[in-house]
């Protein structure tokens, strides 16, 4: 909690007249102008499981909130409800992987990264087991406050050897990553987008296909390069359209795999002399921004470098659009920041 938040604790509030951002918007991601796909993760997994009987699903009392319930309905005998026991979720997934299965373990990102970390580290990653940990509410996608805001999940897992980290942007990424996670011979931590998920990438680049380990240019531009991951690619693309109206030409390199990082593509694009901005739905500590900065410095590539991401702080509760504006990851805030740096 920030000092400002704490100081507000005993200030009475006025009841607003008229419409305002309410808690009904607590987890509603603003994605204007895009069509949506329903439960891309659950549907893709249910479909893939039809032809791959190694796949099993586990959830710690959050199947309905990670879209795993779609898989559970399609393959009830291959779904394990573990209950609200995240350590058991990870340990049992490890045990199933030992026996030759490919377990998809779902919960919220905060619980996988904070509560069950030792189990992910020691029972899964250290043994190189093909457990696919897929977690909803990544970064700032909930207005519930720090208990549900996984602002440091990527930083936590980046320090863990031998685990791949994926942060999808949209329904295409989420659906297409499922077979890629299965094909990946090892553990994966994947952030999930659930429910009605926007279809962003193919609107901007119709032939876009997700490839684990690959960063891809979605939009070319000569003035600035945004290297972005997860939902921030959507923000970057939207901001780029707004900035284009001001004559500012912004390129967007979508980097949905944080680890292993596609350093080759990043170096090639960042080496073109444009302002380079890394945008992530994550604390600016330990995520994609620092990974890119290390890559650039080590290779001797020195563009003007800026970060868009969440502050090193416990964030406030509230409606998601309000919070995205407040912390600089809304469409408007992204555009303003880039403009200010040019």
């Amino acid at each position, binding site marked *: 909690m920030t000092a400002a938040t704490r100081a507000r604790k005993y200030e009475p509030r006025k009841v607003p007249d008229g419409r305002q951002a309410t808690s009904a918007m607590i987890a509603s991601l603003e994605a204007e102008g895009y069509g949506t796909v329903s439960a891309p993760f659950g549907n893709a997994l249910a479909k893939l499981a039809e032809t791959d009987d190694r796949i099993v699903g586990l959830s710690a009392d959050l199947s309905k909130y990670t879209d795993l319930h779609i898989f559970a309905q399609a393959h009830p005998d291959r779904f394990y409800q573990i209950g609200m026991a995240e350590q058991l979720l990870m*340990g049992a997934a490890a045990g199933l992987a030992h026996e030759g299965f490919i377990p998809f373990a779902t919960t919220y990102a905060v619980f996988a990264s904070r509560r069950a970390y030792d189990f992910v580290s020691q029972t899964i990653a250290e043994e190189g087991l093909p457990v696919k940990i897929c977690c909803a509410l990544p970064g700032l996608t909930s207005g519930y406050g720090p208990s549900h805001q996984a602002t440091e999940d990527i930083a936590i897992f980046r320090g863990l050897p031998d685990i791949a980290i994926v942060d999808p942007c949209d329904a295409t990424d989420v659906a297409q990553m499922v077979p890629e996670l299965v094909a990946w011979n090892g553990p994966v931590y994947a952030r999930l987008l659930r429910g009605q998920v926007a279809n962003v990438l193919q609107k901007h680049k119709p032939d876009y296909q997700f490839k684990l380990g690959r960063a891809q240019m979605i939009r070319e531009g000569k003035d600035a390069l945004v290297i972005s991951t997860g939902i921030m690619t959507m923000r970057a693309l939207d901001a780029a359209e707004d900035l284009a109206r001001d004559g500012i030409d912004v390129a967007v390199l979508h980097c949905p795999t944080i680890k292993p990082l596609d350093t080759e593509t990043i170096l090639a694009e960042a080496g073109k002399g444009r302002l380079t901005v890394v945008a992530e739905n994550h604390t600016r500590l330990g995520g994609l921004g620092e990974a890119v900065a290390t890559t650039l410095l080590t290779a001797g590539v020195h563009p003007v470098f800026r970060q868009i991401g969440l502050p090193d702080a416990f964030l406030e509760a509230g409606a998601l659009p309000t919070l995205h504006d407040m912390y600089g990851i809304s469409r408007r805030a992204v555009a303003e920041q880039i403009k200010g740096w040019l």
Partner: protein
Amino acid sequence: MAITDTAGNRSNVSLARRAYNIRRKAIQMGEVQGQGYVGQALGVADVLAVSFFHAVEFRAEEPEWEGRDRYLLSIGHYAIAFYAALMEAGILPEEELATYGMDDSRMPMSGMASYTPGMEMSGGSLGLGLSVAVGRALGLKRKGNPALVFNLMSDGELGEGSTWEAAMGAAHHKLDNLVCIVDFNNQQADGASTGMLSAEPIDAKFTAFGWFAQRVDGNDISALREAFDAARAHSGPEPRVIVCDTRMCKGVPFLESREITHFVRVEPDEWQKALAVLDEEAPE
């Protein structure tokens, strides 16, 4: 009467002799490094002897044989005892004994799956094993494989909340193919487990969690044999637990009588003395 027909059970070597051999190897490994969890190894030797040579099905020449019972060492600290059992079982060659804890050895001080044939998991961060055992038991059932999953853990691990998550899960999923063995030597890093965060009454707790619980003298080979047989023969859907009360340093009286600590201090000249004492009472 034994009801199991395992490879070890078909041998003519007595279980007491197996336990003696395991103790001997553990002391020899302790001497290699001048240290090790020898007190625990001596205490759990009878449990391991009955496990490997009476209760557990395995193929020495094929440690990953699909039909084997999975024997998880949750308590990685007990690796010295487990290696001794693996050598006695012929899964690890005895010639490697003198490499224990050395660089490049297949027998690191703490047990890890990627180093050692027959080591089913990387333990050591305590309280991991039972959760993994739950997953393996679910997996075996899913494959229609009748093998059992054994999880050897210590009383100290009962302090980890994850153990009880797994205990609930095992009962909920009716894992009658899971046998948990708790080595209760009442000794943790800072002192007696019962004086620190007591799990007593342990067997009653497991019963309340929906397990078929037994508690035996873990240094009494016939009692252990009966308990493992009963665990296998039990017809109910409950997971099984055998709480084994063991004595640290069992079999070497001058160490048994020493102030018992987590890490028993053995002077350089005492390793050979310990072997000599053990040899005096060597069973047939």
